[in-house]
């Protein structure tokens, strides 16, 4: 990813006050940050604001970047921390019930058995809202952990590096969170 532009040269030019270098860095980092924000924040949150916040933090802390890892990794971690801070500031919602679901979410829940069918945009949004509702009752860290494992298919090693946790801690958290997720789905199923 970092090979697309010469990050080192861009950073140097930015330090010397070259605004074009800043623009190159913004365009280079935008897809990385956008993906993390979309994954780790609920769909209805203001994505643009948060991407902007992450980029401002990135430029404010660029002097701390040592260059021993790719810039995109360093920025990913910063973006994830910012998302977790935002989630922590939000109140954790209580467990959801079937009656709380909108018609789209309810439809997405029922359709989730038909694996293999390709969803249209409305189904995807309904399913996403439902996923957000289910994840909202977990802690911000557990929410991100589940998404990194189940959605992004990241290895435990990668997650350990991103979150700064040990692998045994990750396994322990997953062991604790899985039953919570199953119980929520079971409850939605039973109250159908």
């Amino acid at each position: 990813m970092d090979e697309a532009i010469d990050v080192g040269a861009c950073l140097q030019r930015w330090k010397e006050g070259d605004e074009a270098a800043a623009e190159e860095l913004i365009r280079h980092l935008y897809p990385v940050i956008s993906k993390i924000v979309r994954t780790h924040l609920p769909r209805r949150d203001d994505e643009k604001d948060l991407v902007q916040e992450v980029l401002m933090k990135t430029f404010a802390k660029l002097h701390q970047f040592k260059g021993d890892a790719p810039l995109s990794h360093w920025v990913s971690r910063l973006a994830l921390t910012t998302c977790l801070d935002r989630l922590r500031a939000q109140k954790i919602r209580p467990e959801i019930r079937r009656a709380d679901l909108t018609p789209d979410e309810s439809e997405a829940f029922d359709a989730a058995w038909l694996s293999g069918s390709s969803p249209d945009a409305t189904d995807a949004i309904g399913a996403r809202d439902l996923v957000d509702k289910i994840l909202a009752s977990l802690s911000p860290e557990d929410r991100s952990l589940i998404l990194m494992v189940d959605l992004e298919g990241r290895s435990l090693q990668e997650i350990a590096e991103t979150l700064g946790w040990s692998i045994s801690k990750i396994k322990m958290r997953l062991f604790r969170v899985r039953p919570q997720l199953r119980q929520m789905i079971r409850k939605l199923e039973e109250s159908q």
Partner: protein
Amino acid sequence: MNPNSKEDEKWQCLLQQSAPTFAGTAEPPYGFVTSILARLRTENGQQAEMERIGWRALLASLAALVIAVTVTLGMSYSDRGSEFEPGVRGFVQMENVQVS
């Protein structure tokens, strides 16, 4: 059969269905880069201004300190040899009190 597999399968299906909404965008929206650059410019300007103000305040404090030290040392030098504290001596002179 694993008793949890039904819930796990449901969860995986929901994630699979919602997958398109998790995809990021490659290009920033129109005006995004310009607004970030404007904010960076403002913040850099503010930071430079704060640094200037900080240096001025530091220099002013140092100058005040030097003046205070000079005055104190000067007074202390001029009072050397006197048997009264400066305030007491002033009182003695003002009231013309006989001290011996």
